[in-house]
């Protein structure tokens, strides 16, 4: 599909700007462009639930990254390091080579295998009574998975609150 290729190229350009630019705020705005392009890709690939979720998650993470960047920091590290750059480019080349070899093993774009997915689609509405099969999977077939996800999100919120509070931190000093 040509639309997906165009949006993926746009995402690559935005990611390159986000990595390359010296301005941290501009970098955050560029990463927001990448995430919103990902939302449009989800919409084009027939998954509207994910598009809505990605939109909300992207805005939330943008807000908190801007909070971190709002601290005025003037670190602009721009020097040439030939050895580190060479080693990492070799690493990336190895990664791309093996990824392209592995690409020959998976089915092509537009023809998925769908062994489990077809079973869910065939029996899902009869067994669960939910028209939306994605909701049926995450809330009925894989409910323990969802429980673990909620507990991990809760634990991460507790960890964020423990890191961010200042009271105990000041008393110890």
């Amino acid at each position, binding site marked *: *599909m040509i639309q997906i290729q165009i949006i993926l190229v746009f995402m690559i350009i935005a990611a*390159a700007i986000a990595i390359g630019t010296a301005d941290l705020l501009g970098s955050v705005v560029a990463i927001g462009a990448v995430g919103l392009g990902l939302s449009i890709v989800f919409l084009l690939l027939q998954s509207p639930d994910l598009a809505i979720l990605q939109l909300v*998650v992207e805005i939330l993470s943008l807000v908190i990254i801007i909070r971190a960047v709002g601290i005025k920091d003037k*670190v602009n590290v721009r020097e040439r390091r030939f050895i580190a750059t060479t080693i990492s480019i070799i690493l990336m080349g190895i990664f791309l080579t093996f990824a392209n070899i592995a690409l020959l093993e998976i089915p092509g774009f537009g023809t998925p295998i769908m062994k489990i997915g077809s079973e869910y689609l065939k029996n899902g509405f009869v067994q669960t009574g939910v028209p939306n099969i994605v909701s049926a999977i995450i809330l009925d077939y894989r409910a323990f998975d969802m429980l673990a*996800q909620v507990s991990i999100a809760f634990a991460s919120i507790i960890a964020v609150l423990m890191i961010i509070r200042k009271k105990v931190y000041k008393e110890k000093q």
Partner: protein
Amino acid sequence: MIEYILTFILFTLGLYAILIKRNLIKIIIGLSIMEYSMNVFLILVGYKNGATIPVFTSLTEPRPDAMVDPVVQAMILTLVVMSLAVTFLLITIAMRIYDKYGTYDIRELNKLKG
């Protein structure tokens, strides 16, 4: 097939940011780019040509053959929320490091050195 290769290039850009950059915010941004590329790769694997969303709109004529894979969508629904939690945790740690050291430069974080 070219969509997969574009996704791998996006992943490689994130890997470059993690390996080369010395600003903590840039490293977190590189991790986010890698997460985005994995999300879009999984959703590309589950796409079927000419298929619709996995929601039954008509009960008299259900067409489960013409729907995309719902399992990868459920997995990515989990993964997106996890990536948000990881980003929050990393950003708060970076802000705490800024309080202690006064910079985001990872070469200055050497209190444990030697």
